[in-house]
């Protein structure tokens, strides 16, 4: 379907799809890389209290649910012929970056729920956690602004 301007509701659905999939992917990468491969994070860290348990459970359930919902909304947007690559990728990067920055700043530093790694000096790890998040977020927002300024022709 050739349509230069996807209608606002369809755009919003595509935006939500990208944000949810970005959140879900960042959450999955966090669990797979740091829990399963590196074993820096554990099923239960004695260091984290009750609030840490609650935030872990919410994040785990929330991220995988977001990923499933994001895929369904993406499938619907494609069925409507309303897929705008710049908009969707911008939303994915924004979602992933927002998750990473939120996790690094609010969970790790502000609430001190748990840390990137235990028993070592954290400065380097925190920078390594938050800076990529900021970069992802900036790239995502830039793509979103571009998609907004210049609606891409839909194929």
């Amino acid at each position, binding site marked *: 379907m050739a349509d230069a301007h996807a209608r606002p509701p369809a755009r919003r659905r595509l935006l939500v799809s990208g944000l949810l999939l970005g959140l879900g992917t960042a959450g999955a990468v966090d669990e797979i890389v740091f829990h399963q491969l590196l074993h820096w994070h554990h*099923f239960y860290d004695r260091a984290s209290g009750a609030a840490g348990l609650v935030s872990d459970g*919410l994040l785990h359930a929330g991220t995988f*649910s977001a990923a*499933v*919902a994001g895929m369904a909304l993406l499938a619907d947007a494609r069925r409507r012929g309303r897929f705008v690559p710049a908009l969707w990728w911008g939303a994915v990067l924004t979602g992933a970056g927002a998750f990473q920055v939120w996790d690094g700043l609010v969970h790790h530093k502000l609430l001190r729920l748990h840390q990137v790694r235990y028993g070592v000096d954290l400065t380097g790890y925190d920078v390594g956690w938050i800076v990529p998040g900021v970069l992802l977020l900036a790239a995502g927002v830039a793509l979103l602004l571009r998609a907004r300024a210049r609606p891409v022709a839909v194929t």
Partner: protein
Amino acid sequence: MTAAALGVLLAAGAGHVAATWRCRSPWPLARTAAWLLGLAAAGVAVAGPARAHHDLHAHMAGHLLLGMVAPLLLVLAAPVTLALRALPPRGARRLARLLRTPPARWLTDPLVAVPLNAAGLWLLYGTGLHTALAGRPALTTLVWAHLLVSGYLATASVLAVDPAPHRRPVAVRAVALAGGAAAHDVLAKVLYAHPPAGTVGAEAGARLMYDGGTVLTLVTAALLWRRWYVSRDAVRAAARPA
């Protein structure tokens, strides 16, 4: 008490098969298979692992079968739809009226059924109830029935396979499902950190509860969104010209 519980499950299977004969339209074989498999999952849990109170690892296998696998399969069998089609017209009208009463509407609302299901689990493992069940067969059977029924209501309210008078939008049902999963995850980690008194295998049991809960919630979420994707409203909205 186990014999009584298995008897109830057998009766439910026989009732379903009898209803498919009386059904006014051909009843899909897959739904009958889902119903019988769901009852079988509950039967396996009741006859075996769910009785292991002290071994939390075996117990959790039973808990997952009885509280998550069996309810999901039973919901997919659409038993209310079958009952409405198999009952004589007067009975079907009475059942439809019953489903519209306020208590039935509350119990099939995901914002009520999912928290009720989670609260039951927290009551069972968070208080001394789990430990108190050992050697009390009547109370144990009651808890099993609660686990199966509240699991069924929660899953049914989220998936809405059967007709529901006031169905919540898909996003509300998805959020309710995720909230229930979060409560399940947190409880699993709490059990890992603070196992109930007098149990062994708490660490393996808690991990099984966490991972099994994740897999079954993922399957349920996929089914929920798949049903939305092929639903009449979504297909019609997608076909509408810009």
